């Protein structure tokens, strides 16, 4: 295995830990945190590609910078929704938000 494979394996492991958190946990805050783990895993993979691939230049760094910015925007809006929802429902458990259930 080349070094980029080791970094991609690490990124895959972290991504699947985050995916498990999104799928299994019921607390909305924990789901948001697991989403952040998944985004970090993707960032590790992009940084590994940027470092080890020839002719990559700085493109991987640009992708990571934009993903970090969009993750900051996403977590801000997501947690604002969680807080606004908590103000109405007094709960942060995802399976109690069932108004739209048919």
């Amino acid at each position, binding site marked *: 295995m080349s070094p980029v494979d080791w970094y991609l394996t690490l990124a895959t492991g972290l991504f699947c830990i985050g995916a498990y958190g999104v799928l299994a946990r019921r607390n909305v*805050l924990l789901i948001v945190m697991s989403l*952040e783990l998944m985004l970090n895993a993707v960032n590790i993979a992009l940084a590994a590609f940027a470092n080890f691939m020839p002719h990559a230049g700085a493109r991987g760094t*640009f992708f990571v910078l934009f993903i970090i910015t969009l993750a900051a*925007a996403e977590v801000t809006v997501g947690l*604002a929704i969680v807080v606004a929802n908590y103000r109405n429902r007094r709960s942060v458990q995802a399976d109690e938000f069932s108004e739209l259930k048919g």
Partner: protein
Amino acid sequence: MPHGDFHPVLFVIMAVWVLVCGLGVVAFRNVVHSAMSMVLCFLGVAAAYVLLNAGLLAIIQILVYVGAISVVVLFAIMMTDQRETKLGFFFNRQAIFAAPLAVAAAVVITVILVTSKMAPNGSQSHNVSLAGIASGLFNGYVFPFELVSFVLLAAMIGAIVLARKEDQP
């Protein structure tokens, strides 16, 4: 320390650190413990950026994730009542399906990545200077740069509108 090479020992320390702290995020029953584990995991990812020869990304990771996003998450935990959520068990009904799915996805993606020939000569690193990043960001990528600043502004306004109390103008 030779610049930009692959260090197996440092990589293993960093990888174990990141994965253990990541497992802590999904495994702790207390949400505050999960958030603290998430902060440590973000620090490990910053170490990964340092090992990947991307010091700028490591600094931005610490500033944005360890500094800002962690504080926002802790504020959200503080503003919501977490007393009853300590009973959210690690192995609930969803986890029975989610754990094999996540493990299977990890195995499949790892096998695909390792057996594919994406990195034929990917052993030596290719250093990108800070000046190269800056000139690329403000020349070829200036439109996504401005677009992402607009997205940040929209997210800021959206968060204020969403989290504002309804009865106060």
